[in-house]
């Protein structure tokens, strides 16, 4: 096993513990927006798909890369947009009748 791989395993391990700590105290109200936001964050796979698509040198790799980029971009852009739409509704409303 290469050193790079082992280091990546350490990064993975530490990040797993961090991820659990970060959202440990989330109220039930935010479960849905949080699920939606983390769903958007794994849209980071878009970057991996770009590396496949950009370096492709066979037809098959071109196809795989293109499919990956389309799906990944949909995940990232759509995920963040819908999360923002959800969270927009949580902002404080101006008190009615004060115009």
């Amino acid at each position, binding site marked *: 096993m290469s050193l790079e791989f082992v280091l990546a395993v350490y990064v993975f391990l530490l990040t797993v513990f*961090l991820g659990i700590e970060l959202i440990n105290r989330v109220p039930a109200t935010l479960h849905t927006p949080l699920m939606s936001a983390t769903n958007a*964050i794994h849209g980071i796979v878009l970057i991996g798909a*770009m590396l496949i698509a950009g370096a492709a040198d066979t037809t098959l790799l071109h196809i795989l890369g293109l499919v990956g980029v389309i799906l*990944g971009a949909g995940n990232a852009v759509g995920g963040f947009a819908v999360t923002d739409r959800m969270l927009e509704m949580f902002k404080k409303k101006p008190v009615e009748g004060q115009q």
Partner: protein
Amino acid sequence: MEDLRESIIHIAYIISAALFIIGLKRLSAPASARQGNQLAISAMVIAFLATLIDREIVTYWAIIIGTLIGGGIGLYLARKVQMTAMPQLVALFNGMGGGTAAVIAVGEFLKFARDGEVSAGEGLSVAFGVTVGCIAFTGSLIAGGKLHEILPSGAIRNPLQMPLSILLVLGVAATWIFLLGMGGEETTVWIMFALALVLGVALVIPIGGGDMPVVVSLLNSMTGLAAAAAGFVLDNQILVVAGALVGASGMLLTVLMSRAMNRPLSNVFFGAFGAVSGGAAAEGAEAKPIRETTADDAAVMLGYASNVIIVPGYGLAVAQAQHAIRELADELGKRNVNVRYAIHPVAGRMPGHMNVLLAEANVPYDQLYEMEQINGEFQRTDVVLVVGANDVVNPAARTDTTSPIYGMPILNADAAQSIIVMKRSMKPGFAGIENDLFHLDKTRMLFGDAKNALADVIAAVKVV
């Protein structure tokens, strides 16, 4: 020159990782949640731009076209889809992410195999990325289909499912051994890809619609892990960090959700294969009496009550009646009726979904009460108005050990002096279970579309 380029990419990725972490932290508190999401967006944009200058990338057409198509579709759906349909949209986006991770793992494997040796670490990451990514892809599409009710929302079961699933698992395991033990060939990975796709379908199909939120959350976590695996395959740290963050927080979120619904995870997945329960409750339901009421009678009951609790459910959202219910609450408020909303943790389709829907209709936040806060209050309540909710007020969850929802915490609506249930028909709820609350002596049924029925009640309240 090339080194400078690489350094820029690394620094950008480090900044991006920090922003993802801070963003996630902010996302877990209501006041800062939106800002947290925006931080995560900026993290994504930074990582995207940095990747564009990677020297491995030599052609740009697929990236540009793909990003425009995928991003366009994602943005369109995110903007246009009704808030009520949001859980299935999240499932769809999740499936897309899982598919991407699987495609990356296959693509990199093709390159490894062509260049010679596949190392143990690479083989493991590829196998994990392909398997988990594919399961998340088809699993999410099935879950989304069930939530959208394109597919039957109930549990689809037949005796062949268990052996079929076991065969698929064994098949996937065999491809892992082939890939890791013998270096593997392209064919092995393609077989793994195909089997895992079918496995995703086989695992989610037998699970009932009521458990779908937990399933989507779990698949979300799996996609995170698949993304991290793709990071291992590509030696890309930002993928490892973001993927691990989602994998871990998603797993915790899944546990929190299943706890809120009191459905142990093992039940969600393996309960589906067990004996069919709850059949007894559905039988003989026809014979039980119900008492129908009219909008005018309901208005009298509500208008002269001093304490009213509204229990909103998914049916309210489907009928787009959020605004009507707020109007009714306002009208009752003018008559000095104390109106509160009781929000079950899984009201709507997912924890927090109902809060989003009511916030959209400008319902004041301080009138919303969570289950633990309000469950003791039902005894002192004159009228409970149940609008389009069913399973979350089903007393069978407390009393009937044979019921599939037995043990799920419910709102004790049956403890109130009287109950008005607004419902389209006597059709059972999402979980497909009969509800005894509807047959109590003190329960009145008001049938009809929630929005129209509420409009009638509001008009009647104004004149009583």
